[in-house]
């Protein structure tokens, strides 16, 4: 199995620097190999940069013409060529937030159960089924949403929340219950991001050393306390990483959301009201954008989505970094 046996002339050269391995007669191949690898590695960031630049250039006329009001105005009128993306930006952020709010506890529950409580024979099948959620095409989620989720929301879920629980008195659950709504989009996104969070969390929890649990138990902790105080904090940064992965999916998801959110250019506090997302807006209007101004506005929406994704991910990255630092700080 040893690799070196295949290359008989392996030689170690000490340069005073870290050890350098050099294989006789393979310098040229090495050079090509390194060049190719570097080329590929550089390609990806270049591609990202190129796309950002291209979208920015295409969207520039819109940014120049509307300025900041492009981000703050709710007036999206392709006929009169007035474009304000505020409802779509709001909808993207709110639907993703609802999705994470619903999916994170569920996913955490599933992964804690699978890693700590489930008997061995149950782990594989349940884990597999949860992962399977990620394999369902988005349009199928959309169809399921139209035919199952929306009727359920219309009656009984929305009337129950609004009237029976009396949440209709708050601005968040008021108004008519038609079905397509920010809530419907949030729920479908929650189901779609759940496998990502659950699967990452499960792997992270399984990687927590046994000693961590045993030490907590030895100190007299109950099983609950051991998980809550010893296992989860250890896995915290990994779990947050899983949540970020889910967030990425939620921000960019297009088809299922378009089918369920009601596609209305309006900012409403009520989760029962229809809304819009940036990805849906692009998907809906790109193919039939007839004027250059409309096309440019959609490109500007794309660029805004690009920037928001990068900013949200940067914040999340920073969060992981801070959590893992404070965790190691505690351990030390």
């Amino acid at each position, binding site marked *: 199995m040893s690799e070196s046996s295949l290359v008989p002339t392996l030689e170690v050269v000490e340069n005073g620097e870290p050890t350098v391995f050099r294989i006789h007669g393979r310098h040229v191949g090495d050079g090509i190999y390194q060049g190719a690898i570097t080329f590929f590695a550089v390609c990806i960031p270049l591609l990202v940069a190129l*796309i950002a630049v291209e979208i920015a250039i295409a969207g520039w006329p819109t940014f120049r013409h509307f300025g900041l009001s492009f981000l703050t105005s709710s007036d999206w*009128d392709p*006929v009169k060529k007035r474009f304000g993306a505020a409802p779509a930006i709001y909808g993207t952020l709110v639907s993703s937030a609802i999705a994470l709010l619903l999916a994170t506890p569920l996913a955490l529950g599933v992964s804690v159960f699978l890693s700590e409580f489930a008997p061995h024979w149950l782990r594989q099948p349940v884990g597999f089924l949860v992962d399977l959620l990620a394999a369902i095409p988005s349009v199928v989620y959309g169809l399921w949403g*139209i035919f199952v989720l929306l009727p359920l929301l219309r009656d009984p879920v929305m009337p129950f929340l609004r009237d029976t629980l009396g949440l209709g008195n708050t601005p968040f659950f008021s108004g008519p219950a*038609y079905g*397509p709504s920010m809530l419907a989009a949030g729920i479908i996104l929650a189901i779609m991001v759940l496998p990502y969070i659950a699967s990452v969390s499960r792997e992270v929890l399984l990687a927590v050393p046994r000693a961590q649990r045993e030490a907590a138990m030895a100190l007299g902790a109950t099983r609950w306390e051991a998980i809550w105080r010893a296992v989860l904090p250890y896995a915290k940064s990994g779990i947050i990483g899983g949540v970020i992965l889910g967030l990425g999916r939620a*921000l960019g998801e297009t088809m299922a959301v378009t089918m369920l959110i009601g596609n209305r250019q309006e900012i409403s506090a009520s989760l029962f009201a*229809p809304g819009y997302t940036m990805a849906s807006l692009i998907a*809906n209007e790109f193919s039939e954008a007839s004027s250059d101004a409309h096309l440019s506005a959609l490109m500007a929406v794309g660029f805004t989505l690009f920037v928001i994704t990068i900013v949200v991910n940067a914040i999340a990255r920073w969060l992981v970094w801070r959590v893992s630092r404070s965790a190691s700080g505690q351990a030390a």
Partner: protein
Amino acid sequence: MKQRFTRVLIAGVIACAASAVGAPAQGGGADLTGAGSSFAYPIYSKWASIYAQKTGVKVNYQSIGSSGGIRQLSEQTVDFGASDGPMTDEQMAKAKGGPILHIPTVLGAVSITYNLPSVKQPLRLTGVVLANIYLGKVTKWNDPSIRALNPGVSLPGSDILVVHRSDGSGTTYIFTDYLAAVSSDWASGPGKGQALSWPVGLGGKGSEGVTGQVKQTPGAIGYVELSYATANHLPVALIKNAAGQWVAPTIEGVTEAAAAAAARLPATSDFRISIVNAPGRAAYPISSFTWILLYKNPANATKGKQLVDFLRWALHDGEKEAPSLEYAPLPPKMVAMLDKRLNDINLAAH
């Protein structure tokens, strides 16, 4: 993990850009390539398959949407474009290959569908009332303006849920073209277009999205193309036409609208005409042509000749296929006019 999303975004953007912003169409060994209207895709693809069997000339048609078709024709990446709305003067001026001809091929119509379980006979609506519903001025089914049109019908007092297409579409163009023609409030307000700013209502993705929403919600009203309403046996409203008659959306009613419009068409017309609210007793008012667009001076004379031959065949033999796919065929007078117009195409090599 974040790259994953970015990658998905990139893939999406590339896919969109490639399909819509003028990447060359993949001919796949085809003799003629065309792109545009998804509304007309069923009939164009049927024509293409029959024509290939008959003559061996392959026509590759991609349904990428009317605006995409116009853009690709303007960039000269396809031999012909197809659109549900005529090109604007501004768009025509930008086309790289010179003057463009509009050739109407078949007609489509938009049906008004609704969900009122208690109403057994077809609902009757005028264009103005329809516009007021879509403007959010009429919000209840038992509004006096609707009751006056439907004497003896027990209309519920429930809210009207307005449903429209969320994706840009030729169907929306025809529907709003009609509303703008009959209601000055609509013309000066939302206006007409493939996508626009709707005063009220929910947006459903595609005809299936609109239909799903209307079917599931009592009190909902929506619009879908005629073929879709017929195939799915949706209840459709009778619309009062310009002659004061109540007409249901049918193929005959649509052809009648075209015939009435064709009768007053000057011989020099460029065929960029709207036939919404057309005169004629049996004319269905929410009707429209769909067009094939081509250059008057084709860059490649051989292809130009092939295209003209194909269009001639389509206008004569191809039209017979239209009713089986729920499109209305052109009235004979119009076919004769178009025959003459095809002679204008300059097939000399240059």
